[in-house]
């Protein structure tokens, strides 16, 4: 795909929330998330010739973002605890719900193993199909299925215990 500077700028603006959000939900640190997101777009710029369509670009960005995030936890640069100053604004209005439960669910998500966390993020942030999650993470569909099943069951049970029936 050949894009001039203006077109590439437009592509970055189109996809920046998606890439940043994947990194933010996974890393839970604004600076690290921006760092990863920047790396992803920088890499996209170097691989533009390999991009065949807009849909391909979206998938490519999700795949590279998820891998860069997981790579980063493997190298594990130190990151501060999530504080108010590093919180990000939601780009879509939040659904009504119990803020306490949301907060608790967020903390449970943060505690999931890296691969499970990324599978949940891709599935529920991006509404991706299991096959798409598998392709983005470079793992078999069966593994995604079992990983998600395990993670969701863990989250649901922990949350139910807290909510005591609020969540069905």
């Amino acid at each position, binding site marked *: 795909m050949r894009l001039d500077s203006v077109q590439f700028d437009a592509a970055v603006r189109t996809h920046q929330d998606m890439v940043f959000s994947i990194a933010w939900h996974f890393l839970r640190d604004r600076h690290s998330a921006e760092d990863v997101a920047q790396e992803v777009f920088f890499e996209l710029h170097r691989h533009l010739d390999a991009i065949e369509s807009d849909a391909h670009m979206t998938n490519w960005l999700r795949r590279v973002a998820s891998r860069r995030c997981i790579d980063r936890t493997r190298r594990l640069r130190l990151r501060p605890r999530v504080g108010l100053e590093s919180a990000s604004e939601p780009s879509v209005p939040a659904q009504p719900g119990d803020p306490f439960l949301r907060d608790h669910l967020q903390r449970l998500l943060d505690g999931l193993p890296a691969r499970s966390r990324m599978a949940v993020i891709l599935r529920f942030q991006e509404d991706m199909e299991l096959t798409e999650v598998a392709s983005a993470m470079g793992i078999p569909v069966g*593994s995604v299925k079992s990983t998600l099943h395990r993670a969701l069951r863990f989250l649901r049970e922990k949350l139910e215990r807290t909510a005591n029936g609020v969540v069905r």
Partner: protein
Amino acid sequence: MRFFLILTLAAAASAQDVLKLLDWEKLAARAKESANVNLDGNMLSMAAAFLGGIEKQAGHPDMKSLVGKLKGVYVRSLEFEKEGEYSLSDIDSIRGKLTAAKWSPIVDVRGKRESSGVFVRTDGKTIQELVVLSAEPRELTVVNIVGDINPSELQALGGKFGIPDIHLQGGSPKQKKDDE
């Protein structure tokens, strides 16, 4: 006599010896990514001082008290491009060695393609050593933490420095063969 000697050697086996049961260099040559951590007491003191400095700035408790009692932290973690680059029997040999040396499993799950275990060695009162075994189709990890391990102190490290919550539960071991 020979039996007694073998038994004594097995009981004396530390997890560091257990780590040597696998040829990590050979396995690492096939891996896409590898993490290798060797922190002895001296290095841990430095690490605690460094992390403690950051923690102090952030107004959190002194890191030294949390890490100070550890004598060694060792990690071998490999991620492979494809499945079948190592054998589950590799991890079973470590498991066997630990079991023979009377280590207690906190969690031990074995499947056809995956296997996970958390084993501890205690002095009757406190945990003196911890080994985490994790074998997934494309990932192999062994962690060994040596020293006076206080689960609640270890848990307190969760949420700091990018460390997820650590849930080291005692009590009866969950041990089951997963037939998948």
